């Protein structure tokens, strides 16, 4: 029976979604007319036996919302939101101009939890919450943000974010990422570090870890017949993969399509910019790496070529597609190349290296100085903090649709949700020496970021590009895992480079969790359970580019309800928060308040205290465990809101 209810709810979601999506989602394909309607007859037929008349239920839902909105105690009229920076100017000007209803500012409790999670991936502690709520300083939110950015925890959280993008697997490359995040190395110089690195052993220069993912697609089966046999590595395929990765991450452009064939005739209905690009232009972009070689060393131990000791140098013959001896020339994972030799030319402007300039150094100079580098980065961070990016996903920029002064032909529209704001943030980022800290702080300090999720009017999908309310997002895998350990005060014992750490985010990547090795002190590792939890929250293994997260699924619920990683932390024993609280002399109310603060980062309401107290009677221990379990399994815990 419950399943049917689920289907019903899910179906009604679909009904309502269709109308919205037709309007907003596929601007690319259809003229901006009325949205396509659901075929009523077909839908009813498909869902016979579940309910009689779906149309009425949808209307009923809308009516109920309006009734309840009227019945609930009002927040009062939504006060005019103070403008704190240029982001607020852009957002609220537009909202006011188009008379869009919007949320009020978040409460301190909402803000503190959200800011802590976004900046550091961690929940605020109960003491910190009490302290923050009691502070009277009108600048306290800005000061909180300043205190979070640049900490060790900040570096862990954002190193994981970039690690997913870079597909980091090795600790050395992870430490490289973490270091530049901590010290706020200018992002253009980070790019330079990555594209110009070379070394005898790729593990010794951490930035070269960037190339590991790309080389997967380029390596043929290793055969230890000859230690000098470079034939088994396809250098041009490798160079192409690297170029695609760079385009995705640093320019927000997916060059994979025209890395195989001209865009015209293939992406015309998908992306105007890509449709205008040719394979020759891709080869020219890839040619910046034309002299780069990755030479795998031979390992006497495994009697085979080994990834562990690759040389990266610039002794290659250029991007010559007719003969790449001694490397394998024929394309393995792309269509055959045309036999020509290509010279480097930047994909967006045609700029070439200066005479005598090392092409990789030229790329390090040319690419970040183009505004698209800043736009792509601004978009990446905006979408992470605001949940909805200017362009989604991050690598889907259509450069022919981002200039309102040069709009694309009908029926295409302008692509980003707010072009002016995106450009303003990009310029500001560039003007501040490509500082990632500054970029994050500027967004977080805006009141646009600090709006509440509560929305008292009737929400319409068309309001989304206005950023008129805070959107919720599902916690990421490591956030969910670490929040669980934090809320229950029972840290993990994980290992990286011989050190024991207590948070998943302190590892180099998801592979670092381990599969069940006991820890140094002999306690059984929770690796299997933690990995299952993270996978349920759509943590990728980093083998392929990361799919969009922010999805809920029943697997998350099953694991949160039944996994020993959760249940061992819900038990009232000396190692858990529940156990410690019960063993103290605290009253029921105090215990309940502490559990709420530790997991939901807010105080319980009167009715919640009452309900929890009832649950703790007559069996206080079992009741407290059940309350803790219920808190951890609430949407409020598993969402960043």
């Amino acid at each position, binding site marked *: *029976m*419950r*399943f049917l*209810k*689920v289907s019903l*709810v*899910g179906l009604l*979601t679909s009904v*309502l979604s269709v109308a*919205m*999506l037709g309007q907003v989602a596929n601007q*690319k394909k259809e003229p901006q007319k009325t949205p396509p309607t*659901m075929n009523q007859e077909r839908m009813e037929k498909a869902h016979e036996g579940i309910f009689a008349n779906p149309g009425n*239920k949808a209307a009923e839902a809308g009516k109920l919302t*309006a009734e*309840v909105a009227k019945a609930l105690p009002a927040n009062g009229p939504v006060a005019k939101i103070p403008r704190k920076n240029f982001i607020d100017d852009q957002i609220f000007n537009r909202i006011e101009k188009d008379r869009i209803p919007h949320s009020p500012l978040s409460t301190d409790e909402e803000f503190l939890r959200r800011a802590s999670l976004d900046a550091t991936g961690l929940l605020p502690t109960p003491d910190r919450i009490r302290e923050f709520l009691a502070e009277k300083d009108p600048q306290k939110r800005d000061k909180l943000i300043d205190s979070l950015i640049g900490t060790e925890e900040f570096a862990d959280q954002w190193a994981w974010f970039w690690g997913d993008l870079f597909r980091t697997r090795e600790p050395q490359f992870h430490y490289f990422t973490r270091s530049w995040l901590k010290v706020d190395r200018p992002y253009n110089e980070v790019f330079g570090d990555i594209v110009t690195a070379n070394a005898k052993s790729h593990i010794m220069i951490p930035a070269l870890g960037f190339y590991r993912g790309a080389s*997967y697609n380029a390596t043929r*089966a*290793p*055969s*230890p*017949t000859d230690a000098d046999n470079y034939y088994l590595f396809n250098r041009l395929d490798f160079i192409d993969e690297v170029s695609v990765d760079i385009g995705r991450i640093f320019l927000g452009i997916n060059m994979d399509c025209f890395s195989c064939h001209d865009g015209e005739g293939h992406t015309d209905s998908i*992306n105007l910019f890509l449709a205008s690009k040719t394979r020759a232009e891709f080869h020219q972009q890839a040619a910046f790496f034309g002299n780069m070689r990755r030479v795998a060393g031979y390992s006497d131990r495994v*009697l*085979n070529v080994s990834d562990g000791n690759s040389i990266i140098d610039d002794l290659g013959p250029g991007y010559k597609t007719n003969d790449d001896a001694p490397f394998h020339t024929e394309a393995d*994972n*792309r269509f055959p190349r045309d036999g020509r030799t290509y010279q480097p030319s930047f994909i967006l402007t045609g700029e070439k290296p200066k005479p005598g300039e090392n092409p990789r150094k030229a790329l390090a100079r040319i690419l970040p100085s183009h505004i698209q580098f800043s736009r792509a980065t601004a978009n990446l961070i905006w979408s992470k903090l605001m949940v*909805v990016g200017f362009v989604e*996903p991050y690598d889907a920029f259509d450069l022919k649709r981002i200039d309102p002064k040069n709009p694309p032909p009908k029926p295409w529209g302008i692509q980003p949700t707010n072009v002016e704001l995106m450009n303003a943030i990009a310029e500001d980022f560039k003007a501040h020496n490509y500082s990632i800290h500054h970029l994050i702080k500027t967004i977080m300090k805006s009141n646009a970021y600090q709006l509440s*999720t509560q929305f008292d009017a009737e*929400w319409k999908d068309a309001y*989304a590009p206005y950023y008129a309310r805070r*959107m919720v997002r599902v916690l990421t895998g490591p956030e969910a895992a670490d929040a669980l350990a934090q809320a229950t005060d029972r840290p993990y014992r994980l290992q990286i480079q011989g050190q024991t750490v207590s948070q998943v985010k302190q590892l180099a990547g998801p592979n670092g969790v381990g599969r069940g090795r006991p820890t140094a002190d002999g306690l059984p590792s929770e690796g*299997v*359970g933690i990995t299952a939890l993270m*996978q349920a929250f759509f943590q990728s*293994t980093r*083998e*392929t*580019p990361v*799919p969009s997260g*922010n*999805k809920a699924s*029943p*697997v*998350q*619920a099953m694991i949160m*309800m*039944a996994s*020993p990683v959760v249940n061992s932390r819900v038990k009232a024993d000396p190692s858990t928060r529940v156990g410690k609280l019960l063993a103290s002399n605290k009253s029921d109310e105090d215990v309940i308040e502490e559990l709420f603060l530790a997991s939901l980062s807010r105080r319980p309401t009167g009715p919640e205290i009452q*309900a929890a107290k*009832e*649950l703790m009677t007559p069996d206080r221990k079992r009741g407290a465990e*059940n*309350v803790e*379990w*219920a808190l951890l399994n609430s949407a*409020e815990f598993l*969402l960043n*809101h």
Partner: protein
Amino acid sequence: MRKNLHDMFPTRRDMLKLGGMAFATSWMDGFVSPLKVSAAAKANPRNNAKFVIFIELPGAISPMECWDFKQTKDTPNDLEVQKVTSDLYLSKTLFPNYADWAPRASFVRSMRAPELVHFTGQYHTQTGRALNVAVAKEIPGFGSVIAAELDKTRRETDTFPTYMSVALGKARVGAIGSGLFPPKYTGIDLDPGAVLEVFGSNDGGKALLEERWAALRKMSAVSPAELRPLGDKASEFGAFYRTAFNILDDPRWKEVFTSVTEEDKKKYVSELGIGCAIARNILAADAGTRFIYICDAPQPWDHHSFIFDRTRPNNHYNTCLNLDRAISNLVKDLATTPSKTPGKMLIDETMVVVSSEFGRMPYMNNVYGRDHYKETYTSLFLGGGVKPGRIIGKTNEDCSKCIDTGWKHSEQPNMDNLVATIYSALGIDWTKRVDNTPSGRAYEYIQTAPIGGSEFISNDEIAELFV
């Protein structure tokens, strides 16, 4: 098991959530509901298996000693090869229990892969298509496609998800999600090393779960986040929690794990075997699951060195024995477990498919191993509508070349065609495509023109297995 009738209909609260949703996330997800699926209307799926179990042997099993036996100078001399039929020779050393499963089996010896590297190969196996990084974000595991297609056949009593997997979380590419299909079609992945404890334990059991569920509902009823909804993600959570609770609360679920007896553990032995025992129980429960993907994770078959050396910790003697025990006991158990259809056993309704991502080199290398090889490899099929004893395709004297594709096309079959065969067996039209994808690029169930090379994939099942 089922509660009151009034639980069937959404409560006011559910409707509130519906009305109060913030849709932006679904807008941004790019997932469009409903998906615009159309068929080329040329296929006639056979619908001759109610269930399918797919067993992946990642790392790649060696054909020339196992299922496409060839006597060469490199063949070990202790294989005790037995003639099963004029076309089929199997090693008694490697597969001591072959008599339990070989008579039912058919083989496709002309398989071909475009990949030579594990992760792209295993990606191909799990998704049924070659990797295209440009759209990888939206490509589903083929199990999710099955779940989406068979959703309409689910019954009121079904609680288990249509698609489940075993050990994919430990595989090299991980458990690939539902891609452009809704997240609810993501399979539930079971780790055989952990689930017996997680879901089969007597840790309070059903009573505790229901007590806690009641506590959750009581707390939710007064929660401000419920009264004034946070957004559609919160509502999705509510819906998924109900689904998850229904599964956990269904006594058949726990039974799947508690019915893996000590005797089973002795018979099945390895984690692959335990995974097969779990699969057997899932199908016997008949609680909604139709497709199970078992991965012999992480990658035990990749014997580049000392492939037939018993002194090495990992070699083909070990892996073949694990596989043999797993398949023989699975087949025996399915053959003796009645299905819900009168007069039939589960084996009559379950197609079992076993495959790797590519083959192994026809010649041994200088460390007595076999490297990767893509030109020929063999997959195994049995049960359901598969006609036993078919040998489709033929290779030359050392498996280096395919000399007869064995089916009606001149191209060798790929993993894509193996997936089409599974779709067909389950009654799914493999020529379908989804047009309104997030990227704009159509998702064809079988990708006939993949990147990489100039080959096309025949848009066809391997029909010769069934006739």
